[in-house]
C-alpha cells in the first residue's frame, strides 16, 4: 500500500526515540561494555613498518608468559583464495579482507596486524606482545597515489595486474583497475564550446572518526558454536566474514548486535571478530578485544585521498556541452577504493550531452580504505563543484543560475547509464533560491559559496517482524543496526499502519539467529528498505486482525475495516458491532488462530536518489589563514521525513563532517611511511566551537517506490561541503584552493603566493 497522499498521524512527527532513555543515562550497552566470566583480553601486534616482508615470527616467549592463554598468527587461519564478497558496502575480496585482518607474508602498512595474544589482563597482553619476535625485511614503500602509479614504484602485490585495460598487462602494477564511463562525443563537445575551464584538485584521506573504537567479545565453545557481541553496521556481515575467514559454518555463529557508537561506513567490514574467535578457540575462554584510538586511525579504513583533473566546456549562455574527468583514487593496501561511484557521482547532478570519465583504483602503503558516507562522491564533487564555480565566474553567471540551467531532471540520462526518475534536484535549487540565506546580501568581509551533491541511495535485502503481544502492545524487530535513530523511524511507520501511537511500538534490533538476513546499515538504506519491510509486516498484521474480527463477528472479512487501531464493521450493512481494539483482539488470539505475528523479507528496489545544495558564508583571516564558517544552510530532498529531527540530524552531522574534511582533517606521514597524527589532538575533527548552527532545509519530493515516500538521507549531506567552503573562500579572497584540507598553513601560503 502507498500512504504518500494519506493524512498521517505518526509519520512526520517527532516522538522521543525508543532507545533514548538508555542512551542519556549510560545504560545503553555498547560492544566494549560487555563482559563475560573468565574473560581474557585480546590484543593485536601491529607492524611498525609501512612495507616489509615477514621473515619469521617467534611467539614462544609470549606463549610462555604467565597469564597468556593463546597466541595466534596467520598460520592459525585458513589461507583462503581470492573471491569477491558482496556482504559489506563497496567492493571487497575475502582474501584481501583475511590478509588485512592478519598479514601472512608481508605487512603492507604501518599498523597492519600480524599476531594476536589473549591474556588475563591488558597489562599482561601488552607484555606478551613485546615478547613476540618478528624478523622483517624492510621494503621500499609508497604513500601517495601518483607516486604509486609511477613506473618504478615499489609494488605491493606481485599478482596485481591492472584490470580494465586492453591488452592485459604483463607486469604487475599498483593500479588495480581502470574504469571508464562515456556518453556522447566529448571532443566534439569541446569544439563546440565557447568557454572551457580546467582544474587539478587533490583531496586527502580522512577517517570516519566515529567516537567508539571497534570492539567485540567472542566465545568459541568446544562444540564449535560461536557467540559474538560486536559493534558493527551489520551483524550478518560480521557473521559472513567471520565464517569465511575461519572456514566455519554460518549457522554455528551467532552475532549479537551491540549498540554502535558511530560508523559512517567504517564499520561495514571486520577487523577484530575473526581474531577474537580464533583466540577464544585457542584459549578455551571468552575473549574481548577493543582498538585503541591509534589503532583506529592506523589500521581501520579511512576513505580515499585522490588526484583529479576536470575540464568543462560551455556555451556563452551557460549550457554545458562537454565534461571530462580523470580520477585517481587511493585504495590503501588492497584494491577497492570507491572509484566506481566517484566516476558516477561527480556529474550526476547535471544534464550533459558529452561526458568522458576515467578512474583509477590505486594501492599504496596505507590502511585499506573503508566506506565513508556516500563513498567516493564527496571527493569527485569537490573537484567538479569547484570548477563549476570557476565556470560561473568566467561566464559572469550567478552560481545558482548556472546549476539551474544544467540541472538533471526526470528523464535525464546519466553518463553511467540509468535515466533519472522522480528526482527532486530542481526542487532543491528552487528552495535555495527562495531561502533567506541565499537572498540575504553577503556581509562585508565575508564570502559565500554554493555547491551541490548527489548520492544514489540503495535498497537491498531486509527483514522485519511485527509482534502484537498478548496485551496488545507491539514489538517490531529488524536486522538493521541502528546508527542514528532508525528504531524510531521504523517503529513510527509500524505505528502509522496499525493506527496506534508511536509509543506503543517498541523497536529492537534482533541478532543473526532471531531474524532473517538483513544487509548492512549503509548506503542510506535502512529507513527505505527495512522501513518498507516493516511497513509490509504491519500491513500483514492488519489483514490478520481484520480476519479475526470478521471471525469474531461472523461476517465476511471484506466487511471489516481497520481504523485508528480498531476493527470496525464497514458500513451499516456489515452489522452493528462494538469496535475491537488491539488489546481485545490480542487477548482472543489463542481462540482466533494463535499468536499475531508477521515477518517480511524483501529485496527492496527503487531507492530514490538524493540531491542536496549547501550555502556557506565564511570569513578568512589573512594573518593566520584560519577560515571561520559564519553561516551554513543545507538543503536536501529527503523524499518524506519520517522523523524530521533525525533527518535534520543526519544533514547537520554530515555537513559538520564535510567541514572537517574541508578545513582540517588529513593523514600526515613521515618519511618512513608512519602516520604522525594518529590521535584526536592532531587529527582534528570539528568541535562545538568550530561550527555554527547548521540549518537543515527539508525538501520533500516523495519517492513513489517507498510506502511513505522516503529516500535515504544520510549520505548526501557530506557531498557538497568541501566545494561550498572552497567556493566561499574564493568569493571572500579571490583565492582558489584546489587542495584539501584548506588548513591555515595552506590558506596562508596561498595569500603569500597571491601577493
Amino acid at each position, binding site marked *: 500500500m502507498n500512504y504518500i497522499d494519506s493524512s498521517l498521524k505518526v509519520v512526520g512527527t517527532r516522538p522521543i526515540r525508543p532507545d533514548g532513555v538508555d542512551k542519556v*543515562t*549510560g545504560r545503553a550497552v555498547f560492544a*566494549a561494555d560487555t*563482559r563475560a566470566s573468565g574473560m581474557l583480553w585480546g590484543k593485536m601486534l601491529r607492524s611498525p613498518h609501512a612495507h616489509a616482508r615477514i621473515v619469521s615470527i617467534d611467539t614462544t616467549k609470549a606463549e610462555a608468559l604467565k597469564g597468556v592463554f593463546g597466541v595466534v598468527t596467520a598460520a592459525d587461519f585458513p589461507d583462503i583464495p581470492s573471491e569477491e564478497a558482496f556482504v559489506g558496502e563497496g567492493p571487497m575480496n575475502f582474501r584481501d579482507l583475511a590478509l588485512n585482518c592478519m598479514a601472512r607474508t608481508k605487512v603492507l602498512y604501518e599498523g597492519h596486524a600480524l599476531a594476536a595474544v589473549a591474556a588475563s589482563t591488558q597489562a599482561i597482553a601488552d607484555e606478551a606482545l613485546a615478547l613476540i619476535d618478528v624478523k622483517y625485511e624492510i621494503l621500499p614503500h609508497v604513500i601517495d597515489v601518483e607516486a604509486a602509479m609511477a613506473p618504478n614504484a615499489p609494488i605491493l602485490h606481485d599478482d596485481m595486474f591492472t584490470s580494465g585495460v586492453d591488452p592485459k598487462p604483463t607486469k604487475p602494477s599498483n593500479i588495480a583497475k581502470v574504469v571508464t564511463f562515456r556518453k556522447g562525443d566529448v571532443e566534439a563537445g569541446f569544439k563546440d564550446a565557447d568557454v572551457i575551464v580546467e582544474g587539478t584538485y587533490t583531496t586527502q584521506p580522512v577517517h570516519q572518526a566515529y*567516537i567508539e573504537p571497534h570492539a567485540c567479545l567472542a566465545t568459541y565453545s568446544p562444540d564449535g558454536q560461536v557467540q559474538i557481541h560486536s559493534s558493527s553496521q551489520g551483524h550478518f556481515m560480521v557473521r559472513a566474514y567471520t565464517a569465511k575467514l575461519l572456514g566455519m559454518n554460518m549457522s554455528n555463529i551467532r552475532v549479537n548486535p551491540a549498540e554502535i557508537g558511530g560508523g559512517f561506513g567504517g564499520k561495514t567490514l571486520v577487523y577484530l571478530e575473526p581474531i577474537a574467535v580464533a583466540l577464544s578457540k585457542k584459549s578455551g575462554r571468552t575473549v574481548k578485544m577493543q582498538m585503541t*584510538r591509534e589503532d583506529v586511525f592506523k589500521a581501520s579504513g579511512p576513505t580515499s585521498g585522490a588526484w583529479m583533473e576536470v575540464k568543462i566546456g560551455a556555451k556563452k549562455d551557460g549550457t554545458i556541452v562537454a565534461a571530462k574527468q580523470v580520477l585517481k583514487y587511493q585504495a590503501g593496501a588492497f584494491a577497492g577504493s570507491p572509484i566506481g561511484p566517484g566516476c558516477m557521482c561527480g556529474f550526476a547532478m547535471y544534464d550533459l550531452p558529452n561526458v568522458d570519465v576515467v578512474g583509477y583504483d590505486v594501492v599504496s602503503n596505507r590502511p585499506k580504505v573503508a566506506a565513508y558516507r556516500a563513498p567516493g562522491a564527496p571527493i569527485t564533487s569537490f573537484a567538479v563543484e569547484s570548477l563549476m564555480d570557476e565556470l560561473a565566474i568566467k561566464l559572469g553567471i550567478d552560481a545558482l543560475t548556472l546549476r539551474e540551467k544544467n540541472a538533471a531532471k526526470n528523464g535525464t540520462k546519466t553518463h553511467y547509464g540509468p535515466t533519472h526518475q522522480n528526482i527532486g534536484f530542481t526542487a532543491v535549487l528552487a528552495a535555495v533560491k527562495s531561502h533567506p540565506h541565499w537572498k540575504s546580501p553577503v556581509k562585508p568581509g565575508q564570502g559565500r559559496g554554493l555547491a551541490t551533491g548527489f548520492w544514489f541511495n540503495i535498497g537491498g535485502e531486509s527483514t522485519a517482524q511485527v509482534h502484537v503481544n498478548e496485551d496488545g502492545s507491539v514489538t517490531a524487530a529488524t536486522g538493521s543496526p541502528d546508527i542514528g535513530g532508525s528504531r524510531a523511524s521504523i517503529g513510527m511507520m509500524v505505528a502509522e499502519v496499525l493506527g496506534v501511537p508511536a509509543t506503543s511500538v517498541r523497536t529492537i534490533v534482533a541478532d543473526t539467529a532471531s531474524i532473517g538476513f538483513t544487509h548492512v546499515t549503509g548506503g542510506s538504506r535502512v529507513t527505505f528498505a527495512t522501513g518498507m519491510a516493516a511497513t509490509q509486516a504491519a500491513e500483514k498484521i492488519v489483514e490478520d486482525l481484520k480476519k479475526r474480527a470478521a471471525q469474531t463477528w461472523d461476517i465476511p472479512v471484506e466487511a471489516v475495516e481497520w481504523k485508528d487501531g480498531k476493527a470496525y464493521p464497514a458500513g451499516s450493512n456489515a452489522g452493528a458491532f462494538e469496535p475491537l481494539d488491539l488489546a481485545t483482539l490480542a487477548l482472543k488470539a489463542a481462540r482466533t488462530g494463535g499468536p499475531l505475528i508477521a515477518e517480511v523479507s524483501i529485496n527492496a528496489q527503487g531507492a530514490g536518489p538524493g540531491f542536496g545544495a549547501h550555502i556557506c558564508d565564511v570569513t578568512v583571516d589573512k594573518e593566520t589563514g584560519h577560515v571561520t564558517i559564519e553561516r551554513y544552510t543545507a538543503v536536501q530532498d529527503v523524499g518524506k521525513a519520517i522523523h524530521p529531527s533525525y533527518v535534520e*540530524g543526519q544533514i547537520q*552531522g554530515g555537513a559538520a563532517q564535510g567541514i572537517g574534511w574541508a578545513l582540517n582533517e588529513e593523514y600526515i606521514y613521515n618519511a618512513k611511511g608512519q602516520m604522525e597524527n594518529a590521535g584526536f589532538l592532531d587529527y582534528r575533527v570539528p568541535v562545538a*566551537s568550530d561550527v555554527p548552527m547548521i540549518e537543515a532545509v527539508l525538501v520533500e519530493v516523495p519517492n513513489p517506490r517507498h510506502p511513505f515516500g522516503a529516500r535515504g538521507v544520510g549520505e548526501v549531506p557530506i557531498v557538497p561541503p568541501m566545494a561550498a567552503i572552497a567556493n566561499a573562500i574564493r568569493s571572500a579572497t579571490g583565492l582558489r584552493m584546489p587542495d584539501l584540507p584548506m588548513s591555515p598553513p595552506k590558506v596562508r601560503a596561498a595569500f603569500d603566493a597571491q601577493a
Partner: protein
Amino acid sequence: MAKSYVSATINGESSEFLCETQQTLLDVLRDVVGLTGSKEGCASGDCGACSVIMDGRLVCSCLVLGVEAEGTSITTIEGIATGEKLHPVQQKFLEHAALQCGFCTPGLIVATKALLDENPNPTETEARYWLAGNLCRCTGYDKVIRAVMDAAAELRGETVG
C-alpha cells in the same frame, strides 16, 4: 604488584575498590566498579567521552589515576538522574534529538551539568567553548547546543515555548 585500596564517594554512595597503580579512573569505573556509562573514545584526554565530575570539577577520567580518587566525590553519568526522574539536561537531550549513536552522550551530559552548575546562564558561544572538549561525530552539535540552552533556561526556571 600489590593493588591499592581506594575509598571514594561515587554517585553519592561510599564505594571501595582495589586498583592497580597504573589503572586510570576510567578503567576502574568500567572494569572494577562496573559503571560502563563513561566511555573510552581516545584514552588521551581528547574526546570527552569519559567525562566525570570529581569534587565539583569536570575531568576526563582517562587522565585521572584510580588511586587519585581516594577521598573524592565523583559523579558519573549513572548519577545524573534522580531515581526514575531524568535530569533536565537528559530530558532536553531526548526532546531535541541531541544524540544519534549516543556514544558521546554520557560525556556531553556530564559536561553540560558541570557547565550549568558553574554558569547557569551561558551564551551559545560559552556553551560551545565549554563543550569543545567533547567530540560528537554524529550531530554537528546543532541539536546538542539547542538542548543545552533549553536545559539551562529550564533550570533557571524560565519556560521556553
